[in-house]
Each structure stands twice: as structure tokens, then as C-alpha cells.
């Protein structure tokens, strides 16, 4: 009988045992929209909480809201790896956190912006631009040996675009992390 991490068991632990530590899992990606007081150190508190509890942030976006005293943090967490219920309850315990919404995919709109720098020359530029057109992406910079394309959309669209342009030679890619807003009249 092995128990992960107990000092009473002296047997060596396999890495699989370490991975097998379980909990409640929803199995899907969650987008958490968090309103926080705009005070110094708030982002550190949130990031620190994730680190301490062993949760992993997949994407993170922070920006102002229509109220100067309040900022919005949008972060995505993998519900297959982490108990989302614990994540939100622990976040609620942070004094500077005002409101948390776990946005249901059907009831919200999520967008991300990505910039792709793709290697291309005269022979392949046209093809890359054609793909960009299909994705309603914008070419924002063109050089002799590369092109920069701006893509906006949900993350699966960005990933699909990435897969298509990768064979041309992806020099680099920058993504903002998702932001999201609820559908309908109510506040997020």
C-alpha cells in the first residue's frame, strides 16, 4: 500500500503514483472572470494562490474596467487537472477579490488575439495571405522574408490557424490569453 508523500512509507514512489492524486474534476476548460480591487499586489496574490495550491493557470489577461477602482482578471484553468470548485472558493478568500464568475461556454463569448510571424518569400506569401483571409485575419506587417498576421477569435480558431501556417515556418507567436464576456443583458 503506497501513500503519496507520507513519511511513514519508505518505498520509492513511481512517477505514476505521483500523478494519480485525485479530486473532483470537470474535465473541461474553465474561463474565470474575476473582478478585483485595483490595488498593488493583487495579481501576485492571485498568482501566488495558484502556485501554493498547486493549480496551474493556462492563460491570463488583466485589464481595466469601466470603474477605475476595479480591474478584471480573466484566466483559464484546466478542469481536468484541477478541482474548479476549490479554485474559486480559495480565490473568494482573497480580500481584494470582489466577484468571480465561472463563465459557461454556451452563455459567454470568449476571444483571444494572437500575432503570428511567419517565414515566407515571394513564392509562399500569397498562400499565407490567402489562409489569413479565410480566417478573417489581418496582415499587419510585411517584410521581404516574413509576414506578421493578427488573428482574433476563440482559442480553437487560433490553434487551427497555427496548425495551417506552421509548415511555412513559424518564426514566433504571441497570444494575449482569452478574455470573455457573458451573453445577454446581464453583467458578467
Amino acid at each position, binding site marked *: *500500500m503506497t*501513500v503519496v508523500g507520507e513519511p*511513514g512509507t519508505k518505498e520509492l514512489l513511481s512517477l505514476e503514483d505521483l500523478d494519480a492524486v485525485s479530486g473532483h474534476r470537470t474535465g473541461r476548460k474553465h474561463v474565470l472572470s474575476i473582478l478585483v480591487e485595483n490595488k498593488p499586489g493583487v495579481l501576485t496574490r492571485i498568482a501566488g494562490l495558484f502556485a501554493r495550491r498547486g493549480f496551474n493557470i493556462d492563460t491570463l489577461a488583466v485589464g481595466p474596467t469601466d470603474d477605475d477602482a476595479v480591474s478584471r482578471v480573466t484566466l483559464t484553468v484546466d478542469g481536468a487537472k484541477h478541482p474548479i470548485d476549490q479554485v474559486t472558493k480559495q480565490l473568494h478568500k482573497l480580500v481584494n477579490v*470582489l466577484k468571480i464568475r465561472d463563465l459557461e461556454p454556451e452563455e459567454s463569448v470568449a476571444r483571444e488575439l494572437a500575432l503570428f510571424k511567419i517565414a515566407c518569400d515571394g513564392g509562399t506569401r500569397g498562400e499565407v495571405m490567402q489562409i489569413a483571409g479565410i480566417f478573417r485575419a489581418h496582415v499587419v506587417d510585411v517584410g521581404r522574408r516574413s509576414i506578421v498576421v493578427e488573428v482574433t477569435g476563440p482559442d480553437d480558431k487560433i490553434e487551427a490557424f497555427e496548425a495551417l501556417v506552421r509548415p511555412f515556418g513559424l518564426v514566433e507567436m504571441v497570444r494575449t490569453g482569452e478574455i470573455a464576456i457573458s451573453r445577454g443583458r446581464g453583467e458578467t
Partner: protein
Amino acid sequence: MRAADALMEALKAEGVEVVFGLPGGANLPTYDALYDAGIRHILVRHEAGGGHAAEGYAKATGRVGVALATSGPGATNLVTPICDAMMDSVPTVFITGQVRTELIGTDGFQEADIGGITLPIVKHSFMVQDPREIPQAVHEAFHLARSGRPGPVLVDIPQDLSRADIEYEPATDVSLPGYQPTTEGNQKQIRLAAKAMANARRPVLYGGGGIVNADAGPEFVELATSDRFPVTLTVMGLGAFPAPHEQWLGMLGMHGTRAANYAMDEADLIVAIGARFDDRITGKLSEFAPRAKFIHIDVDPAEISKNVPAHIPIVGDAKNILPRLLAEYRALETDDSRLEDWWSRIEGWRRQYPLGYEDSADSEIKPQYMVQALYEATGGDAIVTSDVGQHQMWTAQYFHFDRPRRWINSGGLGTMGFGLPAAMGAQIGCPDQLVCCIAGDGSVQMNMQELATCSEHGIPIKVFIMNNGYLGMVRQWQELFWDRRYSQVDMGKHPDFVKLAEAYGATGMRLEDKSQLVDGMKQALATDGPVLVDVRVTREENTYPMIPAGQAARDMVG
């Protein structure tokens, strides 16, 4: 008004009578203001001693404990007490000096990012950036420390800001829009819980430190005795239910009684109140109380379903909830004969597995007997603190705490060196009570220096060292689980504790004979001022019974 003086006014407005601390460069303004502020200050010999003393004060009185330290090493010495207070939900405020603002971030002399260092181990912290924020930060810190689930709050104040001239207006109203603890408890859930309790055939009430923190001991006892509910408590909850009582099963968990652990194992309903299903309670989680449904009452929603899924969660303060639960339960008019089979099963365990040990045939003092002797010498009428290890578990088992706030120990963090300074703090908070510390010979040396503080201030704590010459609990684990390879647990050449006590200006005594023990202890208790008693006990004695780590209650040994 100088900001440091405003700090003192804010502390007084919060009812602070005593603070524990040690001055340094960065909190010179604070100490200048303290000079004639009318707040009692206990000058400790190490900031960790001050931090644990603040915890002991808070645990004994229920009031907020306050500790001061300077920047850098002063502040980092508070890290262990802060973490300890977080784990055990102790209402405490820690006020640290910081280097002046222009030096922050430059690796200045005695600069440490104490805010960053303590971020994961505080309930909240304030890194003051504007002197006008200081009074408000103090009021908010006290509000946070004592409300909801209590905990430590850090206020870090740069030295130059303390010298600023600010307007001070007494104000104790706080505005924390992101902090609204739920204290009431949902009435529908309470009704549901009462019904579940009325229908249960094998119920157990499982209480923890939350009952003590909520000052809900009497309400808990009333609920438990409204019917014949079997009661068990965690090491943090001891005293919430009077230990010598027919419904008392003893402490549960790793070194709990078989009656308590077997009852949890066979229960059909477990009512958890202010307890958090720590691994020391559950053992192997997948085999913990496999037949039970769970009612979980806790002021911290994040504790509910964290380790064990709750069937009926109730978020709120036990002090509010328990009387309403009792009223709902009484309205159901249950038949208490339904618990007869359950009690006969429990009585069977009690008869078969009473707590016990094999006493020595000669004058040797068994460690368990040492606790019993202190119980006898004090008549049970004492606040008792402890360090962490075997002596802590034996005290929990054999000193029968009958009221809350009499048993003060480091349960969550398990901090060696906690007991002596905690006793000092408890004694300051409760000057009319007898305060004893049962310490380990390893642990006591970690904050021994506070004996000097006790001598200087005439703080008459009675410290009884359970001296077996080992880091006993580690030795026990090495014996049981690591093939008796005793690696670095023999404490070797001890200091002469009697002479050490005398060197500190305290009274030192040594007790080695079982037949003289109770009388010797009585003599120590009757001695004025702080007393350190070196009690020589059996070297290799194990703490039993025991659920080996990671196993189930059924697998108890010893």
C-alpha cells in the same frame, strides 16, 4: 499627528492592552510612539517567541494577539508564528517595520520583502504606501484577524512613513467590499441537518478548533447532550466538550482512541463542526468513514468538500448555527432509544480498548504518567500549552480538558518551540490562572530564551520538560517504519536544565522518581515566578494507539 502615534491610537481604539515585540532600526518610530502610549509591551528575546506569545495570548483569551518586529531578520523571524497562526486560525496582527520607501527594492540594509514572503501564509496583508493609510490598515487588519475564519494579518510600515505628519480621526468602520464572511447559516440546510440527525442510527459529532474560535463550546455541549450523541474532538477542539463525560469518546485521529476512530469508521452520519478533515484525522481518505453521510458546518466555505464531500454543507458561525440546529432538532421529538444499539457497540470498544500503558515496576516515570501526575497536581485546573511531538499527543490523551481555551498547542503547523512562548502569552492574557507548559526536551530548546522574558516580567509559567533525550516522535517513526535506524534523533548531551533555569533567573527543578512526582510538581506549582522542571521519563516509549500514516481507522495499532 505623527503616523506612528496614530498607529498607537488605532491600536488602543481596537482595545489592545499588550503587544509582544523587539525593536530595531526600521521600527524606531513605532517604539518611540510606544514609549508613552500606555500600551504594555513585553520585550521578547527572539521575534519568534513574540509571535508565539501573541498566539498564546489570542488562544487563551479569544482577543487579537499582536506582535511587533523590525524589518529584515526581525520580520523573517515572525514567519513561523505567522504560518502557525494561519494553520490554526489564530486571530493575530503582526506589525513590521520596513526600510524607508526610497530604499525599497534596492536590497537595502535589513530589507526583506516580508509581504511577499508571507503572502501564502496570511489571511491578508497591508504593505503601507501612504502614511494616511496606516490607521485604516490597522482597523481593517483587526477586523480581518478576528472575523469570519480568524487568522494572521500583516501590516508592513516603511520607517519614513511612520514619521509623517498625518491627520488622525478615530474611525473603526471598515470598508472591505471583497470580504463578507457568511456567518448566519442557511435555515433550510439547518433544518435538513436536524432531520438527518434525527434519522441517524449511528451518528457521531466531530468537532474541531472552529468551535473554540467561535466561543461556541456551551452551544456545542447543549446540542450534544440534547440527545445521547457520541462526541469526539480533534486535537484543536479539545475542551469544547468536557472530557470526563459519558458521551465523550476521546480525541480522534492518528493518536485518538479506538472508540472514537471506530465510531467514525462505522458511523452512518458524521456531523463535522469547525473541523477540516485534516489528514491526521482521516488517514487514508478513500477508506475514511465509508458508510457515513456528512453534515459539515464551517465558517470557511473553502473547507467544505475540500477533502471529504459534504452531503449537507452549512456555511456560517457555529455560535449562530448550533442553537438553531438544536431548536430544529428538538422540534422533531426523536426517540433516543434508537441510539441504544450504537451505544452498546461503542461501550464494547471502550471496554475492550481503553487508553492505557504499561506502568513501570520501579521508580521510572512513564511519560503518560507524567501527564496524569500533572493533571492530579493541578486538579485539572490549568491552561496547558505544549510543543509538538509525543508529549503533545500524550497530553491530549491524558490531560482531560473540560473547557475551551485551556489547551493551547500547535496543531496544524506542528511547530516545535511553540509551547513556552505560548504559555508566556497565555499567562499575560490570563494573569489569574495557572499556566503550565508540557514541553519536549527537543522542542523546549527552540525558544528557551523566553525564560529570560518570563523572569524579567515575573510571568509565572510552570514548564515541565518531558525529557526522554530523544526527538521522540521521529524516533518512534524510525522504530516502527524505518527499521529502527535511529538517524539523528538522540539529543545527546543535554544542557543542565536546572542550572539553565537558574541562569535565566527562574527556578529549576529535576524530578526522576515516580513516587515523588506529584508532590514535586505541586511544589513547582507553589513556587513563585517561572519554574522549569526537568522530568526524566522512559527513553523509548511509543505513543499509542496509532493509525499508521495513510492507513484507515481499522488499521490502528498499539
